[in-house]
């Protein structure tokens, strides 16, 4: 498979990634052997961009990915995410958001340990934290880049304003958001649209979005199209 470049900082990934969440969370009973075999097969097929998060499991998914990539570190690009307040004894385990700088750094260290790697290739804020200015969060993320613990930064489900502010603190390489032919939530796609316009360097006030991006209808996700969790990581910083 060829590669795709996200952002302007040099993040290069396989055109398709592998979402690992369901291997230990949501969607039924986990099957570790099949999950690890799936990751190994993905690497063989050139699907080397692996997506996980602290909160998946919680924690278990990163450990699983860590076990699967043992001895194969140089073949994969690992993306993980911080940003939730987690209480594993609760159902659901997510009890809020937490993007305070001290938590950003603590999660990075813990994720590195669970994944058994020396650096995280792409570190995302999982959800915007309304209690912490994005500049503070991205400042902490930038410190992690300086420390060599993280290579590239991203946000997930962030709006255009947040992205603009974050990008001023440190260049971002990726935005993750739900988007597909069958995505049922139109406004996330419109945010995506704005973001891509920012990226393209054209006027943010321009009204017409690229036609294809405005499509956000129903169905495919729940009606037999297996690409139900197609989550694009899109680069808005390209000019």
């Amino acid at each position, binding site marked *: 498979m060829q590669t*795709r470049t996200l952002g302007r900082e040099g993040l290069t990934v396989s055109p398709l990634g592998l*979402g690992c969440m369901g291997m230990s969370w949501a969607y039924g009973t986990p*099957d570790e052997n099949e999950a690890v*075999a799936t990751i190994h097969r993905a690497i063989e097929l050139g699907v080397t961009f692996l997506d996980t998060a602290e909160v998946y499991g919680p924690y278990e998914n990163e450990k699983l990915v860590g076990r699967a990539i043992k001895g194969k570190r140089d073949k994969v690009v690992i993306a993980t995410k911080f940003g939730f307040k987690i209480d594993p004894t609760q159902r659901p385990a997510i009890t809020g958001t937490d993007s305070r700088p001290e938590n950003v750094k603590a999660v990075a260290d813990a994720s590195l340990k669970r994944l058994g790697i020396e650096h995280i290739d792409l570190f995302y804020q999982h959800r915007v934290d309304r209690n912490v200015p994005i500049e503070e969060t991205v400042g902490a993320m930038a410190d992690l880049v300086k420390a060599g613990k993280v290579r590239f930064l991203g946000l997930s489900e962030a709006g255009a304003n947040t992205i603009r502010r974050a990008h001023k603190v440190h260049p971002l390489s990726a935005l993750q958001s739900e988007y597909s032919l069958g995505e049922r939530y139109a406004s996330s796609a419109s945010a995506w649209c704005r973001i891509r316009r920012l990226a393209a360097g054209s006027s943010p006030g321009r009204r017409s979005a690229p036609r*294809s991006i405005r*499509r956000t209808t*129903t*169905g495919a996700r729940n009606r037999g199209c*297996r690409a139900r969790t197609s989550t694009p990581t899109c680069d808005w910083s390209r000019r």
Partner: protein
Amino acid sequence: MRLVEAVKAVADEKKATPGQIALAWLLAQGPDVVPIPGTKRRRYLEENAKAASITLSKQDLEHLGRAAPAGGTAGPRYHERMMSLIDR
């Protein structure tokens, strides 16, 4: 369901699955778009991976686009509490 029918029609023509067409459509949205389909089984992974070699024509993309009109959806993807965490 117009969208489902449109996806199926393109899928049949390409001898692909609807899921592969949905992924190929995403890949066609730009070189800066990287779909991350989730799966925990080799079977689905292999199916998804084949989407990278499907090229949709301009006509295919228009056909799919027409079947999926803007804002034509209803219902959030998460429950209210998780939905409230999405920044817009």
